């Protein structure tokens, strides 16, 4: 029965209260461990199509008569256009429509960051459009930009409110602590750099618009476009069949979608607006840089008694404050915690969510300072973390729906115990070391999410839901769940996703929520279809439903009889059995989170500052694993992205003008395959007994969370240098080594 509830909904640490309708989750969970299809490695269903170039991405779409958009963007971080003349551009051959600041509210003549859209025009080809931009005449009054986050906090130039959190008596706890460690940690801005740049193609038919877009949330785009153009939401159809990477930056419609829709509306032609690689690296969002001023108080045995953090996140001109203090508030059982978080509003391009926003940055700071604490106390860093393990949520005492972090630690031991041998490999300028860091993140998913399962006369099933597969292997996991429930081999299940007109509502693919939200709905839909099939079979073969089940593509009875599934469904000829399923509620009164630990092994050349990551062992607890092969891919992808964040990637701004200097992939350095270490992936794979009919949590984000801290802690183990700033470039490492030497000199006993 449908139940209307008012509930707290979480996406990436942002909580909202909302009404939702949930269906009771009547299914018992499957037993733990590998089943017939679920829990067994499955190659991606769309792998061959992707490899052969048959998969249709938004970037591949060519509609008849389609126009292309070029956007004039602000070269200045803060300026006013004193003169803006688009007449020559409008008259250029092949140009079909020009929009300026007065024409459309996504355009401005008073840019507050580099890359803000000023003029957009549509032409027959992209080259024609780009050339026509040169004909736009602009004169700028350039104003002084605000670029310093600490200065922004002083001037109260903030996005949103200052967020303050406190529990216990922090000041007293620090006063009574045996040891106090403090430090300032910094993380840089990194860029998502999706292979497929942000883009949309819009086409109007009367009062309806179809939006083909590279998105993590087709329903969100639908609602945003409907609001912007004052349409009933069902007049907007959003399609995203294949998607070339999002990482958090494609959660909303974006100005490019609105520009394409408006230009299409005015010209009566389909219009593409696709960011170039340079626009992608300036204007599609970024992980906000952070300054973290942290303090930790502990007893001499390593028990944490007080944690305090002042966090300043440079959000740019717009955005939202990521939950950067979340790790400090949640990861360890510490009674006294105080955090203050500021979102500095600067004249820089706005941030967007980036794979575990806030937690990647906050975990670097917290797990680094705990490593420094462990060194100061001479306590084993792994032991220190065990000693402070939280058995219930330290914020409100709620029990966890499941938590196997201690099991993760246990499985990390073989890698951790090698650190003495690893260190002994040090030779000449090359020093070896091992470091570790813990991971905590969300990943419960939640309602509302719906799916249908259609079983046709040929005995094949189709999962239908208007979700999107953002490249994580979602289709495959959904097919596995439906196959398991229907007793079908995997190759008899198809999945239709990516079209708001062709299926029920589905969640955003963000916040590690896709699988834990959609998986239970798909299983419920498959179970509904299975029930109908068994009802039909019972009547056809004059048996009781309770003696029938679906196995191996057959209807099987307890007395040994069996009938091919297609014999039953074939009775219906072209008609089909339709199962419907909904995601049930999350467990009430409980906290559902994901956990893990990573152990990194590094080699450091102390003369040239080179860091080579040799191995990362990643042990994560995300409940039941649906597809071990897909899960492994997620872990590898997260660690490789984390490796770039740790060592080589950084968005550089000109310190006075605020221009983005790293716009191209030669200047912005993603890791290459030669940089990738051995990655050991291990999943605890124990279903969360309280969470849905699957017991599965999300895995999209957890693997990137602890990587930077684990590597930096390994560098300390290898060299004694405390790296407190990302990325760990050669100059950063050499600076940290100098500081370590200086400290050693200061602390050495004076010569007699």
């Amino acid at each position, binding site marked *: 029965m449908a139940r209307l509830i008012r509930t707290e909904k979480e996406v990436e640490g942002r909580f909202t209260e909302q009404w939702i309708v949930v269906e009771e989750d009547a299914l018992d969970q499957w037993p733990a461990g590998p089943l017939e299809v679920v829990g067994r490695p499955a190659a991606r269903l769309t792998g061959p199509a992707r490899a052969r170039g048959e998969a249709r991405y938004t970037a591949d779409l060519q509609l008849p008569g389609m126009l292309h958009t070029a956007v004039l963007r602000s070269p200045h971080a803060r300026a006013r256009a004193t003169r803006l003349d688009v007449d020559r551009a409008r008259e250029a051959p092949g140009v079909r429509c020009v929009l300026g600041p007065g024409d459309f509210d996504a355009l401005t003549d008073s840019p507050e960051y580099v890359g803000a859209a000023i003029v957009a025009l549509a032409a027959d080809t992209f080259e024609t459009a780009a050339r026509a931009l040169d004909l736009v005449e602009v004169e700028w009054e350039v104003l002084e930009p605000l670029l310093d986050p600490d200065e922004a906090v002083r001037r109260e130039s903030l996005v949103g409110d200052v967020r303050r959190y406190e529990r216990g008596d922090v000041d007293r706890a620090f006063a009574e602590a045996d040891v106090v460690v403090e430090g300032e940690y910094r993380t840089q801005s990194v860029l998502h750099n999706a292979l497929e740049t942000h883009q949309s193609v819009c086409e109007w038919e009367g009062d309806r618009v179809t939006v083909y877009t590279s998105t993590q949330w087709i329903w969100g785009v639908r609602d945003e476009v409907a609001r912007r153009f004052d349409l009933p939401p069902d007049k907007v159809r959003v399609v995203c069949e294949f998607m070339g990477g999002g990482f958090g930056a494609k959660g909303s419609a974006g100005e490019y979608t609105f520009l394409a829709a408006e230009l299409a509306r005015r010209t009566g032609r389909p219009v593409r607006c696709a960011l170039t690689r340079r626009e992608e690296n300036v204007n599609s969002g970024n992980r906000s840089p952070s300054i973290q001023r942290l303090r930790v108080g502990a007893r001499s045995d390593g028990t944490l008694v007080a944690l305090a953090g002042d966090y300043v996140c440079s959000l740019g001109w717009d955005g939202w404050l990521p939950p950067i203090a979340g790790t400090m508030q949640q990861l360890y059982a510490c009674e006294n915690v105080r955090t203050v978080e500021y979102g500095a509003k600067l004249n820089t391009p706005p941030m967007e969510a980036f794979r575990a926003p806030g937690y990647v940055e906050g975990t670097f700071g917290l797990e680094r300072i705990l490593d420094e604490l462990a060194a100061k106390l001479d306590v084993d860093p792994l032991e220190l973390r065990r000693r402070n393990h939280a058995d219930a949520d330290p914020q409100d005492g709620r029990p966890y729906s499941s938590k196997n972090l201690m099991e993760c630690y246990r499985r990390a031991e073989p890698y951790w115990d090698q650190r003495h041998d690893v260190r002994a490999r040090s030779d000449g300028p090359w020093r070896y070391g091992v470091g570790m860091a813990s991971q905590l993140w969300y990943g419960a998913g939640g309602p509302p999410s719906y799916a249908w399962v259609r079983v046709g006369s040929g005995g094949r099933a189709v999962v239908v839901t208007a979700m999107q597969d953002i490249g994580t292997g979602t289709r495959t996991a959904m097919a596995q769940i439906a196959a398991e429930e229907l007793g079908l081999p995997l190759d008899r299940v198809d999945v239709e996703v990516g079209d708001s007109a062709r299926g029920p509502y589905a969640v955003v693919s963000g916040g590690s929520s896709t699988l834990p939200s959609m998986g239970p709905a798909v299983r419920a839909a498959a179970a509904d279809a299975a029930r109908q099939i068994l009802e039909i079979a019972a009547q056809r073969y004059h048996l009781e439903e309770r003696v029938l089940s679906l196995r191996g593509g057959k209807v099987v009875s307890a007395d040994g009889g069996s009938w091919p599934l297609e014999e039953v469904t074939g009775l219906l000829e072209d008609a089909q059995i339709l199962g419907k399923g909904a995601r049930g509620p999350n467990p009430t009164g409980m906290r559902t989170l994901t956990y893990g630990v990573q152990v990194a092994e590094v080699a450091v050349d102390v003369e040239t500052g080179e860091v080579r990551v040799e191995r990362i062992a990643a042990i994560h607890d995300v409940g039941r694993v649906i597809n071990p092969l897909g899960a492994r891919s997620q872990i590898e992808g997260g660690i490789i992205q984390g490796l770039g964040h740790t*060592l080589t990637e950084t968005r*550089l701004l000109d310190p006075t003008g605020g221009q983005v200097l790293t716009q191209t992939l030669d200047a912005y350095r993603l890791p290459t395959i030669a940089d990738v270490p051995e990655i050991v992936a291990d999943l605890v794979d124990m279903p969360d007994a309280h969470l849905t009919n699957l017991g599965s949590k999300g895995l999209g984000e957890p693997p990137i969370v602890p990587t930077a801290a684990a590597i930096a802690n390994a560098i300390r183990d290898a060299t004694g240098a405390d790296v407190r700033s990302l990325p760990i470039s050669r100059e950063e490492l050499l600076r940290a080594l100098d500081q370590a030497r200086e400290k050693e000199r200061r602390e050495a006993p004076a010569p007699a």
Partner: protein
Amino acid sequence: MKLRRPPSAEAAVAALGNGSVALAGGTEVVPLLRDGLLRAETLVDVSEVVPRGIEGTTIGAGTTLAELEVDPQIPDALRVACRLAASPQLRSMGTIGGNLLQATRCWYWRLAFPCYLHGGDRCHAREGEHREHAIFGNERCASAHPSDPAAALLALGARVRTDRRELAIEDLYRLPTDDDRDVVALEPDELILELEVPPAEASVYLKAMDRRRWAFPLVGVAAARGAGGTRIGLAGVAPIPWLLASPDGLDGATPLPGTEYKLRIARALVRRAFAALSG
């Protein structure tokens, strides 16, 4: 834009200049044209008319980096410098002649800031972001020359033969001046045809970069021991490939605040290069 395919090197030279630009592998010219940093009315495809291949100590300017990196006749320093440059795809297209003429990766120059090298009155990098920039010859322009092979050829004492003259590789380059911002001393219609690389008793190339592969040098150090002693060539440390008279030459560096680390790396790599040569 027109594309011409002249039948001979002489015809190619005659077609160059006056808005015509030579095109070989295209790995540098095409991006520069696309980004509006190089203007050309005509592209002159020289890939069929410039010598290609290795004969003893002579290297055709049209030889690709991929061909050089596997040829046993090529001294170690040059072979390794080619192998550590760019990516396999780029090395299969890019020629050694073109590699010597590639422009800096300075982000201000590449993003067309009105900087000194573009004819402006100041170097934006000196006051701005310059972690990848120069520690030598950086008073007016702090850009760094990106060629790995050029440093190796400097150390090896290579000579360059063009359609009209022969010159030492160090004379191919010049620091930009107020009168002339070019870093290459060739005429607009001059074409590099061959390189003459004297044999070395031993040579080595060591490279520090941000990634294990496919990155320009933060610091590249080439050293070669030959009849006339040991020569050192540096990549990524000056607006042009930098010849170092001796290891002590590093004392004359003028690093910027953000490039001091490069000097430390250079010292370490020069020391290692000498150890490798004597080992």
